[in-house]
């Protein structure tokens, strides 16, 4: 009887939650958002192949001509097929934010985890450095970058990534500190496991739901900011198709009474951003719930 397992202790069959199950837990709105994002990603990858027409070539005589048989959404201000331009513009509109998110999540995670692990002066140094960086609003830094390096998607994306990093690092540092203080981490330290392997195999995987939620929410922000920069003429350069550029190009149509061209690009941005916001928010709620 000494060390035998007590008879009535039962083990509920709780499996580790797969990403699919996590997605299902975000509810109908979450799943719908994920589907919308998947479609947008598909268009970004294959958009140019799907386009019925060239996104670059057009005839000025078709300027702001409404939908006709072969042209589902009609033409833009320069007489180019609107649908083709929207499909072609998906790529830059999504790849830019993706770059921003990847860079700032990577940098933010490394800074947050290392600061939480070392604590003390290193943490104080990183934290106050981030506070200073916090003084640059993303768009302002992007404009500055455009002035220095010339307008373009690369400079704008890098500038936004730098501006977002302190925000990401701050949120993740809190999570990393919480995880760091878990007793299993101390137990592994006592076992003699290296800091690097504890961070890589335990800390970061446990922060992953939060990291993914953060990345999703940030994607929406990055998309809006990058489109704004392109709208200002400092991001993607015409005649390349981009949803932000398209709004700027076709703003004159709005005043002239033909808003479809500008609106269509605007609606594309709003739909994708709404999808990222909702999914991100739901994932965040799930990540918080899992902590309890």
């Amino acid at each position, binding site marked *: 009887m000494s060390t035998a397992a007590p008879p009535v202790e039962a083990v509920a069959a709780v499996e580790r939650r797969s990403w699919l199950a996590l997605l299902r837990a975000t509810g109908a709105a979450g799943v719908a958002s994920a589907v919308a994002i998947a479609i947008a990603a598909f268009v970004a990858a294959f958009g140019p192949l799907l386009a019925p027409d060239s996104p670059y070539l057009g005839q000025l005589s078709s300027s702001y001509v409404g939908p006709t048989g072969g042209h589902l959404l009609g033409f833009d201000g320069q007489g180019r097929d609107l649908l083709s331009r929207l499909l072609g513009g998906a790529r830059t509109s999504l790849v830019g934010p993706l770059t921003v998110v990847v860079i700032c999540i990577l940098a933010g995670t490394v800074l947050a985890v290392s600061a939480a692990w070392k604590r003390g002066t290193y943490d104080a140094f990183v934290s106050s450095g981030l506070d200073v960086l916090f003084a640059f609003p993303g768009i302002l830094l992007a404009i500055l970058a455009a*002035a220095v390096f010339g307008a373009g998607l690369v400079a704008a994306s890098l500038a936004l990534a730098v501006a977002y990093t302190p925000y990401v690092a701050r949120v993740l540092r809190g999570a990393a500190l919480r995880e760091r203080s878990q007793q299993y981490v101390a137990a592994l330290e006592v076992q003699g496991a290296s800091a690097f392997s504890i961070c890589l195999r335990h800390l970061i995987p446990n922060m992953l739901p939060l990291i993914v939620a953060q990345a999703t929410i940030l994607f929406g922000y990055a998309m809006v900011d990058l489109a704004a920069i392109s709208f200002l003429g400092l991001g993607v350069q015409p005649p390349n198709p981009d949803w932000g550029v398209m709004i700027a190009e076709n703003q004159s149509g709005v005043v002239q009474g033909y808003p479809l061209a500008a609106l269509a690009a605007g609606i594309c941005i709003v739909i994708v951003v709404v999808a990222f916001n909702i999914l991100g928010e739901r994932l965040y709620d799930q990540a918080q719930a899992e902590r309890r």
Partner: protein
Amino acid sequence: MLVATLVVSSFVIFSALYLAPGNPIAVLSGGRTLPAESIKVLEARYHLNDPFITQYWLWLKGVAHGDFGISIALRENVSTLIASRIGTTAALVLYASLLILVIGIGLGLAAGLRRGFLDTSVLAVTAVSAAIPSFVAAIVLILLFSVKLTLFPSLGDGQGLFGTIYHLTLPAVALAISSLAIVARVTRASVREEFGREHVQTAVSRGIPYRQLVRRHVLRNAAIPITTISGITVASLIAIAAVVERAFGLNGLGAYLVSAANSKDFAVVQGISLVLVTAFVVVNVLVDVLYAILDPRVSLGSRAQ
């Protein structure tokens, strides 16, 4: 912290001159070919033959005295150019901030305190409007209120107080709309969260009437996170204003910054960036002060996590 941040940001803004490809003269002239005496003027103005740190120090001293240099494109003092445009931007940001604080917090409180139809509709509407970029909002507003209904102008700054308000209404709404939605959502969530706190339960167990409970324990405590989010969003307007100014053809600092960046008018870019960063930092400091007043656990200077 305020001083440190400003020193570092001014340093970054100044040294951007050297980060750029090409020599400082090329950057300052924006690639224009200048006569020899103009180059001399620039060299003297920026002390380009002195060590880097000296250059920065002299530049900073000039800035402190309101001397931001000369616009290479307009051949005018940058400070004069800034002064003539700062009013529009300030009015726009203030107007939008007011909308955010009054309507955003108001909606959030209403939704947080009452479950049911109002709550659900605020949630749904703000989920979408939080995702509407200011320039998309701008074209929709122009379409609806200037082109279709012709209630508001689509362009220009307007004259006098009433004219300014009239001309700035659409831009302010466009600027405020997504921040307003975010503030409303966070306000709602904060109110709900405070309702669930243990100390609120203590107050219930002591027979404190509902209205007093809400006022003294729920709203008073929710004011802390609401202040944080309001501060962040209002500060961010300072930069986004550039987009709205462009969309509505307003003659503000942001729009000028963008055209300066496009024409590589470097002194102007530096000057305006510095002004905007300073404004941004000052707003953040004000929020920190307010935060320390609202939360006795926070002493001034230790930023709330």
